[in-house]
C-alpha cells in the first residue's frame, strides 16, 4: 500500500468531495492543494477562484496567499474583491460554489471561529479574523471544512461565531436570512464528519485507517453520532503522485 502523510490524506479526502463543474472557492494552504488535486484527478471541469477576484488561474506554482501574484496569471478575468464576493452572494452563481475553509474552533452545527480565543473584549489569543470566511459561509452552496481534531477545537460553545454554519441547527439558517446551503463535511486529522440532513447536527461519517470512532470522540468536547461511521478509503498511488508532482513539487504546503 502506498505511503502517505496525514496532510496528503486530508488534501485528498477534501479533493474527493469536489464534483466536476463545481466552482471552488479556496484560501491558501491545504485547501488550495485540495482544489488543485481535484482539478487534476476527479473534477477536470471544476473552476478555482479566489476572494481576491482571480477566476480560473493557471496556478503553475502554488500560491502562498490568495493575493499571491501566482493567482493573477492566465485567468479568465482579474476582477476585484467586490466582483468576487458579489459572484458568491448572487443566488444563481453562488449556489454552484463550494467553499473550502478552516478555523480555530468549530461547534456541533459547523459554525466556525477564526477571530479570538477567550473573551472577545479580553482575549487570551487574538486570531486573524474573518477575512472572507464569514462571507463565503454566508453565501455559497456548500462548504468543506478543515480542522485539527482536538477537544479545544471541537467545542460546545464557540468563543466567537465568525462564520455561520447551520447556526442552531434545523431550519435556523434560512430563518436567519442566510442563503440555502451550508457545511457539508469536516475533514480532520482523524476522520471525516458530516451533518444530518434534518437536524444539521455533526456526525461521524468516516474514520481514517487505524483510527477508532471512540478515539475520535476522545478528541471532541461534544458527543456526535458514530453509528453511521464507515472506514475511509486510503489515497491511491495515482492520487498521491498527482498531488505530489502536479500540485506541490516544492512541498511548500505538504511540508
Amino acid at each position: 500500500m502506498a505511503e502517505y502523510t496525514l496532510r496528503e490524506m486530508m488534501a485528498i479526502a477534501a479533493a474527493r468531495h469536489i464534483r466536476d463543474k463545481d466552482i471552488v472557492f479556496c484560501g491558501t494552504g491545504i485547501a488550495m492543494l485540495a482544489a488543485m488535486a481535484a482539478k487534476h484527478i476527479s473534477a477536470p471541469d471544476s473552476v478555482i477562484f479566489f476572494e481576491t477576484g482571480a477566476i480560473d488561474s493557471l496556478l503553475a506554482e502554488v500560491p502562498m496567499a490568495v493575493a499571491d501574484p501566482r493567482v493573477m496569471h492566465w485567468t479568465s478575468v482579474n476582477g476585484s474583491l467586490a466582483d468576487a464576493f458579489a459572484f458568491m452572494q448572487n443566488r444563481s452563481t453562488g449556489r454552484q460554489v463550494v467553499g473550502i475553509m478552516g478555523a480555530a474552533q468549530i461547534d456541533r452545527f459547523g459554525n466556525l471561529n477564526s477571530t479570538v480565543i477567550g473573551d472577545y473584549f479580553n482575549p487570551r489569543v487574538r486570531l486573524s479574523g474573518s477575512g472572507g470566511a464569514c462571507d463565503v459561509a454566508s453565501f455559497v452552496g456548500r462548504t468543506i471544512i478543515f480542522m485539527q481534531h482536538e477537544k479545544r477545537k471541537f467545542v460546545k460553545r464557540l468563543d466567537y461565531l465568525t462564520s455561520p454554519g447551520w447556526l442552531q441547527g434545523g431550519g435556523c439558517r434560512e430563518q436567519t436570512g442566510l442563503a440555502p446551503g451550508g457545511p457539508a463535511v469536516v475533514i480532520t486529522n482523524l476522520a471525516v464528519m458530516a451533518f444530518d440532513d434534518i437536524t444539521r447536527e455533526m456526525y461521524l461519517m468516516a474514520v481514517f485507517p487505524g483510527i477508532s470512532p471512540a478515539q475520535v470522540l476522545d478528541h471532541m468536547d461534544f458527543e456526535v453520532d458514530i453509528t453511521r461511521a464507515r472506514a475511509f478509503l486510503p489515497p491511491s498511488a495515482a492520487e498521491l503522485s498527482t498531488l505530489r508532482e502536479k500540485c506541490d513539487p516544492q512541498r511548500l504546503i505538504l511540508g
Partner: protein
Amino acid sequence: MKNDRNKVMDLPTAIRRFVKVGAHLSIGGFTLNRNPMAAVYEIIRQRITGLHVYAHSNGQGVDELVGAGCVSRLEIAYAGSGRFAPTGIRFRKAVENRSLAVEDYSNYQMTLRFMAGAMGVPFLPTRSGLGTSIIDKWGFPAELRKTDPKIPNQKLVVMENPLDGWGDADRLVLVPAINPDVTILHAQKADAQGTVRIEGLPFADVEQAKAARCLIVTCEELVDVDVLRTAPDQNQIPFLYVDAVVPVAWGAFPTACYRHYDYDPVYLNQYREAAIDEDRYRTYLETFVYGIADHRALIEKVGRRRLDAIRADTQTGYAVNLDRR
C-alpha cells in the same frame, strides 16, 4: 485642486501634507501584494501616531504600522500575510496587550463600506454575517461611537427587507460607509496629472481611492500622459480623484508588484522572526526603518542579489521558481 495638471511630489512631502496625527487612513493592496510599503515606512519614520486605520486584508503594511505604534484604532477583516504570518504578529500583540482598539468586519463588509463611501451613500446592504458575532459584538465602546463624529453611532444595522421579501431576502445587514481622510495606494503606472493604471488584481484599491477625501498614489513608473490615454480601458482611477503622485521604484517592497517584482520571502521571514521578540523588533525598526533615509536606501541595503531573485518574469508576472520557503 483635484484637477491640477501636475501632482508629482516626493514622498516625505506627500505624507507630511496629507497624513496628519490621528488621521483616518486606508492603504491599498492585499496581504503580501501591492501594499504601499514605501509610504508605510515613511509614515513610521515621520512618527505619525493616533491613526484610525480601515483595512480589509491589507496585510503587511497594516502590521508594520501597528507594530511601530502609529495606529490607535483599527477596523479590519483579516490581519495576516498568508503563509508568512497567518495572524499578524504585531497586530496580535497589540490587541492582546490592549494598546489597539479593534472593530471586526468581513472582507466583503469592508469592501462594501469603501464602496458606499465612494458612491456617496451612507450604507450598502449585504446578507453576510447574519447570525454571527460580527453583528452582536461591537469592539468600539458605545460612548466612543456617540462622541466621535468621524465614526457612525452603529457598527452596523440589521434590517428587515422593506421590499416584501423581494430577492428571497427577509433580513439584511447594512454596513456604514467609510470616507477616509486619506487613502494611499501603490500602482504600476500613473501620469503627472494623476490617471492611474493598476496591473493584475486591483483588490479594493479603486473603491478605497474613490472613498477617500485625499488620495496619494505611489507608482513604479511615472509615465507620459500619452501612454495611459492611448489605452484608457486599462486605467482604473481618473485623475479627478488624485491629490498626489509619487514615483517610487520598488515602492511595494517587500510585498509584490505584479509584472515588476515578487514578494521577498527573505524579508518577510526575517520580519516574522523579528516581530515575535521585542528586542529583535526594536532592532528591526532601527535597522530597516528609522535608521534609513528613504525607500531607495532600503532597496540598496537589500541588495542587487535579492532584488534579482524576485524580479518578475515578463510572461507570468512573478518570479518563476523563486525559493519561497
